[in-house]
C-alpha cells in the first residue's frame, strides 16, 4: 500500500515539476533570425588544411576514409618527384556525411578538420560532392605549427633524411668508425 502511495506521489510530483516549466524560459534559438554560438570545435563542414610551409597536410593515408562510418570519403594517393605523398583526388560526398568527426580523429597529420560551418544546403544533391579544390583551405586550422613530414622519417623536398624531429644525421654506411 505504501508503495502504491509512493508511486502515485511520484507521478504527482512529476506532473508538478513539468507544470513548473510553464514559467521557465525557452532554450530554443530561433535560427536563422538569431545565430547560435558555435564552439570552434563544432563539427560542421570538413576542410583540408595546410602545414606551416603552405603545403597540403594530407598525405593520402586513407585513414579518414576507413574511419568514415558512411564511407563518404574517397581519395587516391599520389607522390611528387621528391617522395612527398599527397592526394591525387580527395572527394567527400557531403550528402552522405553525418558530421561525426571520426575522420578528424583518425587523421594522423591534422589535415582533415571539421569547422563550425554547417550551412551547406543545396537544391541539387550533386553540389554536395566536394572535391579537393573545394575542401582545401589555405590556413592551418586548429593545429597551427604542426607539420607531419617534420616528424616523420620520410625525406621530402627541403627536408633530407635525419632532419626530422629527434633524428640523428644519416649513417655513413661505408664508415667503420665506431
Amino acid at each position, binding site marked *: 500500500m505504501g508503495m502504491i502511495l509512493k508511486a502515485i506521489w511520484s507521478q504527482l510530483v512529476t*506532473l508538478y515539476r*513539468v507544470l513548473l*516549466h510553464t514559467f*521557465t*524560459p*525557452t532554450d*530554443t534559438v*530561433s535560427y536563422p533570425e538569431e545565430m547560435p554560438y558555435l564552439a570552434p570545435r563544432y563539427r560542421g563542414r570538413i576542410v583540408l588544411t595546410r602545414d606551416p610551409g603552405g603545403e597540403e597536410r594530407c598525405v593520402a593515408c586513407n585513414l579518414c576514409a576507413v574511419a568514415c562510418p558512411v564511407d563518404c570519403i574517397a581519395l587516391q594517393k599520389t607522390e611528387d618527384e621528391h617522395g612527398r605523398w599527397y592526394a591525387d583526388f580527395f572527394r567527400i560526398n557531403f550528402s552522405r556525411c553525418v558530421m561525426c568527426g571520426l575522420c578528424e580523429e583518425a587523421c594522423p597529420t591534422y589535415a582533415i578538420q571539421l569547422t563550425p560551418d554547417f550551412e551547406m544546403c543545396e537544391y541539387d544533391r550533386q553540389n554536395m560532392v566536394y572535391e579537393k579544390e573545394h575542401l582545401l583551405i589555405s590556413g592551418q586550422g586548429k593545429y597551427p605549427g604542426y607539420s607531419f613530414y617534420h616528424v616523420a622519417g620520410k625525406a621530402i623536398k627541403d627536408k633530407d633524411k635525419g632532419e626530422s624531429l629527434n633524428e640523428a644525421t644519416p649513417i655513413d654506411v661505408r664508415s667503420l668508425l665506431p
Partner: protein
Amino acid sequence: MVELVIYLVIFGTLFGSFAGAALLVWFERRLLGLWQDRLGPNRVGLFGAGLAIADIIKLFAKEDWIPPFADRFVFVFAPTAIVMAMLLGFAVVPFAPDIHVADLNIGLLFFLGMTSLAVYSVLLGGLASNNKYALLGGLRSAAQMVSYEVFMGLSLMGVVMQAGTFSLVDIVLWQADNIWFFIPQFIGFLIFLIAGIAESHRLPFDLPEAEHELVAGFHTEYSGMKFGMFMLGEYLGVILISSMIATIFFGGWLGPDFLPPIFWFFLKSFAFICFFILLRAAIPRPRYDQLMSFGWKYLLPLTLINLLATGAILLWA
C-alpha cells in the same frame, strides 16, 4: 426559428468540434513546447497557429495509399468509424442550459455506447491493414478499451445513483442544486479520468500505437487523410472526454454569473484538455501488462468499492 437554432447548434457542434480538434493539434504542440522549454510550432501564421491549416492541407495532399495486401473496404471504413462515433458522442454534451444537440434521457449511456464503438475502428483498422504491427496494435487497443470501458461505465454509476438520472442536462441541474460531483464522487472522478485517458488511447496509455515497439500500431499502414481521420478521432476523443469530465463532475456550464454559462463549460473543458497534454508531457508510457493489471487489479476493485459505498450511503440516507 426554433428549427434554425437547432440547426445552428448541430452545425456549431459539428464544425466547432472539428475546428477544436484541428486547433488542438497545434495547441498541444505549443503547450508541449512550453513545458519542455521549447517554442513549438511558431512559423506558420500567428504563433504558428496556421500550422493547423497547413497540417490539414498536407494531409489532404498526401498520397492516399491503400496497401495491395489490405482489406480494401474495411481499411477505408475503419478511420471513418472513429470520427463518426466521437462526433455522435458530442450530440449529448450540454454546452449551456439550452445549447445541446439532444437531451436524451439516457444521455450518459449514449455517450458510453459511442465511445465503445470507437474500439471497432481501431480493431478493424489494425485487422484490415494485414500487417503484424497493425494487428498487434489493434489487438492491444481492443483489449485495453474493452477493459477500461468496464470501469469507465461503473465509475459513472455513482453519479447516476446520486443524481437519479442518465440525462446529462439533469445531472448538471442536480449539481446546480446540490454539489459538484467531484466532491462526493471523487474516486469515481479519478477512475473516470484514468479510464478516459485509456479510452482515448492518449499518452501515457497509447499502447495501441506504441511507436517504440510497433512502428505506429494500428495505423502503421495508414497515410493521407485516412491517417488524418484517426488523428481527428483521437483529438475529438480528448475534447469529448474533457467536456464529459467537466459536465459530469464539475458542474458543466455552472459558474458565477459574470461569464455566460457556455464560457464556463469551455473553460472547464479546456482545463482538462490542458491536463491531458500535461500528462503527455510528463508521464512515461507503462508496459502493456502493467496497464492491464493496473486496470483489473486496482481500478476495478476500487470502482466496485466506490459503487458499494455510494449505494450504502444512499440507502442509509
